[in-house]
């Protein structure tokens, strides 16, 4: 016999009560867990994906679409921009670094990005195997692409137009994999990187130049500067100094028919929009948790009436007041602790299920096995909650007048 057996025996006598109370709390806790895991991982992702990108320049349209397309690669481009225009902007004195990007094709739903090595360097990408793509139609693939599609160095494939798997194929040109990246937990994991020329060639905008250009373009050195034909999709820009924050977007938006969008501003806007939904859910979860606390309180409080003889008998056998107090307290804390453990587990299972069931979930690269400090806080909080809702019943037990109870027959 020990304290745990005692507490457990009482919980076991009313299995329905116990299970219901645990489950009610678990439901509330699991909603909070999912929200916490989600927002934590998504904001981590957003932070790592936007790192080093101060401004995105693209065709006029929705600034959020521009960001979703060229930073997170989950939307279609707003249109194309002239290479010459992009060059003009990249030569601006407030621009420290600019990365050209040509989009439009994909393979099995994974986007092929025509860009320069600087793009991979932005995310400190490293090679897992093989070598970086150098020539046209050579590609370096992200780790998630390689593992999901079972690709290895030397494989070849034909790209498809658009971001879907059923777009028409560019059968005439086949890409060859030269390297595979290490996992970076950034958007790169889902990318297929090639050079800008490959994208142009697929779309017949470029023939391999026999002559070296006299004045090479700063963005794509294999063509002449101020080329009037070729186009890019977007330009990622890093500022030279904080002054650029104010001047550069205005300069671009007013002196060209391009638009400049700031990743940090647009993602903040996005979070503000989905934040309302998250707040409603959180509120709902808090209500659930409070109801379950109330339910545990009532269950303990009501059981005291039928347990007053038990409590008095235990006192007659030598148990002190404190022992009774602790027994009731532990019962409440066991319920809330079990509820929150179950809730945390359910939350992680929900995330895991989300990633299995919804294909976009896989690309989101969320982890169901990652634990965050907030979960330890929730566990601690649930113990405190258990303490609060069992304190009054426990105090009642503490105050039991054993003489009155035992003589009252």
């Amino acid at each position, binding site marked *: *016999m*020990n304290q745990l*057996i*005692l507490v457990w*025996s*009482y919980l*076991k*006598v009313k299995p329905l009560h116990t299970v219901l109370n645990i489950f009610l709390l678990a439901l509330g806790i699991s909603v909070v867990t999912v929200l916490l895991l989600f927002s934590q991982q998504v904001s981590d992702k957003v932070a790592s994906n936007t790192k080093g990108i101060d401004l995105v320049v693209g065709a006029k349209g929705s600034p959020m679409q521009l960001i979703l397309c060229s930073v997170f690669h989950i939307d279609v481009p707003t249109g194309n921009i002239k290479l010459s225009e992009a060059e003009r902007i990249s030569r601006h004195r407030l621009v420290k670094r600019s990365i050209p990007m040509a989009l439009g094709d994909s393979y099995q739903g994974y986007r092929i990005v025509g860009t320069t090595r600087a793009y991979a360097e932005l995310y400190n990408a490293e090679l897992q195997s093989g070598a970086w793509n150098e020539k046209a139609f050579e590609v370096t693939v992200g780790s998630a692409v390689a593992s999901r599609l079972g690709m290895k160095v030397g494989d070849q494939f034909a790209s498809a137009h658009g971001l879907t798997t059923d777009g028409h194929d560019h059968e005439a040109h086949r890409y060859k994999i030269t390297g595979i990246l290490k996992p970076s937990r950034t958007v790169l994991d889902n990318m297929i990187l090639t050079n800008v020329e490959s994208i142009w060639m697929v779309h017949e905008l470029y023939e391999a130049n026999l002559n070296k250009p006299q004045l090479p373009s700063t963005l794509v050195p294999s063509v002449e500067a101020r080329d009037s034909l070729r186009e890019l999709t977007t330009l990622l820009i890093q500022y030279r100094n904080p002054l650029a924050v104010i001047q550069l977007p205005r300069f671009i938006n007013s002196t060209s028919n391009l638009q400049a969008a700031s990743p940090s501003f647009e993602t903040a806007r996005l979070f503000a929009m989905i934040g309302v939904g998250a707040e409603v859910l959180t509120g709902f979860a808090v209500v659930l948790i409070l109801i379950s606390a109330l339910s545990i309180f009532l269950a303990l409080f009501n059981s005291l009436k039928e347990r007053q*003889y*038990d409590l*008095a*008998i*235990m*006192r*007659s*056998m*030598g*148990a*002190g*007041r404190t*022992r009774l107090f602790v027994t009731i307290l532990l019962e409440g804390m066991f319920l809330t602790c079990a509820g929150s453990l179950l809730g945390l587990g359910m939350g992680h299972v929900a995330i895991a299920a989300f990633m299995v069931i919804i294909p976009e979930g896989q690309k989101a690269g969320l982890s169901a096995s990652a634990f965050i400090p907030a979960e330890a806080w929730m566990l601690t909080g649930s113990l405190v909650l258990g303490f609060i809702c069992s304190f009054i019943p426990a105090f009642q037990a503490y105050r039991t007048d*054993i*003489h009155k109870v*035992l*003589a009252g*027959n």
Partner: protein
Amino acid sequence: MIRIEALRYRYPGQREIAFADFSLSEGEPWLLLGQSGSGKTTLLHLIGGLLRSQQGQIIIKDTNISGLSEAALDRFRGQHIGFVFQRNHLISALSVRQNLLLAPYLAGVRQDAGRVEAVLEQLGISDKADVNVRELSYGQAQRVAIARALLNRPTVILADEPTSALDDNNCDKVIDLLLDASRLNNTTLVVATHDHRLKHKIPHQINLTQA
């Protein structure tokens, strides 16, 4: 063994009850007789430390329990006093064995599985050890309650109306059980009752009359 001196108790708003001095020697069974309201239960609870005395002394095995702190009194009660109540009050969430083990656990002494078996054997209910107490008959439950009171080898067993709800046949059985068990364990038995059937069973008697 047990000595009562100048003991008085007053419930709020009621007349004071004064108890006559008496002393019981070790291993002797005593009957505490009196009508309802004469203070039998009060005296029993005072001796058992369920009620704190207001005046006078209760000395059990050289310990004046009126002078003990609350925690010390709880400990003393657990180790030296066993209770048998009219309604058996077993802990229904636990099995028979767990109910018995609760006694040493709550008293803070070693839990001896062998002792549990021995006591159950003595009372003829060893086959019920792992049964839930809700499945016991009244008679079996009473035996378990007696076993529980005996388990810690208490100095004294205090029984409050153990037979008043029973027919003659069962009344005899229970009182014999209590007498045998206390003799076997060398325990002083004090039975508070208004049940006159017990008078010829236990020769030592204290009569409480309403003063």
